[in-house]
């Protein structure tokens, strides 16, 4: 093992241990659990509010007793076609009030409980719909049409004429849309993990600078080895984090697989290869963005400066995500090719490509290209650090002059 690698690993080991062997790491590890709990609480609260509101909301039809059963049957049939989320409110049948139906509808629509959002009255051949909610009026009009058709055809309410039998067909080739969806999920997953984990590296040299340990590190090892070691250490922490949550997710999926259908995962390169490539691209995304954050954060002297630097860093990350997401939605486009080549969006975009296109060789090239940029980024950021903090090394101009 070369001295450079050994020194990088010593720094990595120290950083990994320093992060993991603290009580705060437990909080960090369980942070997503808090996020999930908070989301669940929020969703439950929102659902309760929606349910309470839904309980009171109605659509109504002022219908004759003879039309009533046809309307109820048509309502039952139409509702089965609609997903629960977009089903209309409960239907109330209201006895007719002769020529006063219009006035009754006005009164009912004005009362708070039950809260009618649309009321149909008049003959089914030419009904009138009084509405607050446009979508509901279409549903009521369709109900009137269906009920009228049944009545005119002489079909008794609730009669089932056709008994369909459904058989699942085994899908052998993935559809383009499921590949796109998988590609997008990969981009989002890698982006989310990178945002959550690589951003931590922005303040990694703050401790060394404030404790003056940097002098010892700089005397004992090349700064490039120190930077690489810090990235590897933080990547170890990230791996621990991802492994923990991937393990939990695996257990949860295994336990719930029988009653919760999994979304289809389709990747052009095959699922195992896709997963391996995603892991490699996560590594590269972490190293690339982590190196930038480390280098930028290394220029800061105080926590306030570090916090101020976090915003442009996050914006940069989101920009890379946006570029890669667009690439995932339009594989083989010029934009996708640009995102695959641009080093800092390349890991995300190439993960999407793995879902959409079957060739393997571009991934080998991309991994080499990204690795080169990891090295270049570390070299540049270490140089900036050397000049900015240790006040040593040539400036950019003299460096360029020397190269010429």
């Amino acid at each position, binding site marked *: 093992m070369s*001295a450079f690698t*050994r*020194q990088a690993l*010593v*720094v990595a*080991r*120290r950083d990994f241990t*320093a992060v993991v062997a*603290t009580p705060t790491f437990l909080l960090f590890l369980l942070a997503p659990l808090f996020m999930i709990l908070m989301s669940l609480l929020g969703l439950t609260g929102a659902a309760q509010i929606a349910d309470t509101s839904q309980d009171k909301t109605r659509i109504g039809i002022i219908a004759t007793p003879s039309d009533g059963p046809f309307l109820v049957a048509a309502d039952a049939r139409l509702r089965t076609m609609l997903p629960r989320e977009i089903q209309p409110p409960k239907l109330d049948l209201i006895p007719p009030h002769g020529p006063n139906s219009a006035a009754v509808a006005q009164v009912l629509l004005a009362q708070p409980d039950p809260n009618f959002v649309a009321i149909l009255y008049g003959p089914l051949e030419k009904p009138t719909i009084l509405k607050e909610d446009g979508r509901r009026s279409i549903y009521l009009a369709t109900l009137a049409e269906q009920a009228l058709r049944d009545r005119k055809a002489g079909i008794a309410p609730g009669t089932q004429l056709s008994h369909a039998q459904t058989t699942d067909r085994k899908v052998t080739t993935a559809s383009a849309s499921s590949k796109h969806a998988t590609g997008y999920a990969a981009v989002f997953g890698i982006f989310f993990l990178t945002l959550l984990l690589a951003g931590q590296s922005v303040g990694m040299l703050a*401790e*060394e600078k404030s*404790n*003056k*340990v*940097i*002098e*010892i*590190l*700089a*005397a*004992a*090892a*090349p700064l490039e080895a120190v930077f690489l070691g810090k990235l590897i250490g933080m990547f170890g922490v990230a791996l621990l984090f991802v492994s923990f949550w991937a393990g939990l997710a695996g257990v949860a999926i295994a336990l719930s697989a029988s009653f919760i259908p999994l979304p289809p995962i389709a990747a052009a390169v095959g699922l195992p290869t896709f997963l391996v490539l995603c892991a490699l691209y996560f590594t590269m995304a972490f190293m690339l963005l982590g190196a930038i954050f480390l280098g930028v954060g290394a220029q800061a002297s105080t926590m306030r400066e570090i916090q101020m630097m976090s915003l442009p860093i996050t914006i940069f990350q989101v920009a890379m995500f946006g570029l890669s997401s667009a690439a995932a939605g339009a594989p083989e486009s010029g934009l996708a090719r640009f995102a695959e080549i641009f080093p800092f969006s390349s890991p995300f975009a190439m993960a999407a490509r793995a879902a959409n296109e079957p060739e393997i060789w571009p991934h080998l090239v991309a991994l080499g290209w990204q690795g080169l940029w990891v090295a270049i980024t570390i070299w540049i950021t270490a140089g900036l650090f050397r000049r900015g903090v*240790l*006040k*040593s*090394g040539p400036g950019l101009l003299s460096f360029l002059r020397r190269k010429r």
Partner: protein
Amino acid sequence: MTDDMPVWAEGLVKTFGGTPAVRGVSLSVPRGMIYGVLGPNGAGKTTTLRMVLGIIDPDAGERTLLGHADPRKVSHRVGYLPEERGLYPAMKAREAIAFMGALRGLDWATGRKRAGEMMEASGLGYAVDRKIRQMSKGMAQLVQLLGSIVHQPELIVLDEPFSGLDPVNQEHLEALVRSEQDRGATILFSTHVMSHAERLCERIAVIAGGQRRFEGTVDDARGLLPMQAQYVPCDRAAEAGALLPADARFDGRTWRFQVPDGGAEPMLLSLISAGHGIAGLSMQRPGLHDAFVRIVSDAKRADAEAQA
């Protein structure tokens, strides 16, 4: 330049933001020697040491460390205690020492074992598993020193190692430096406290205003100043001044003066002949402190003249 000179530097120059910090310093530290780099605050000692170690690159000049032009190539054979002490506060002392050894190529297990032994020998055995943040400044400083020598380096560079230590720990550190020399290590340290240099160093370099103003042994430095004499006449003490050098000072009983270039004997003979007699006489070399003050003062004066 050669293996006999673990540290060799010629004409080192370093400028920070247009302000020259080091202006052509040269150093040659022979193997196995305790060598002191002395200088007032801001003289350029630390910058010189950092250039020698390769922490920063010189703007001009050459240097070799243990015979290598690139000091980083031999960093595993060097121990370094920086002026600004730095340890990870959450680390235990044993781990901190092992970590510093590991950075220099020592495996962790050996580093931990040696850390325990060294701390025991230094009287800090009770604190091996204590976190740095729980230690006093002096203890932490000692831990850092042990960390810089745990890999048994050939060359030990200590930047102001005695600052912040109480007299007991200073004594302990001096003993440690001597024992490292006995092991065969070359020691280069900077200080502006002359007593340590006087006791420890075989050779010294004085840096002032970014330039080397003196290089030689401690005795050579002291030899830059004339001998100091104290003379107590037997009779008519006040009148004896007429036969003494012009700068002689009298406190009512004793005359103090610098021994003239020709020596003290002719002057003493004339004093005896004049009947003043000798009730008391002592002559001594001035200390390194005085020599240092003279060298630095001369340097300042020369710089001021050059600027004018």
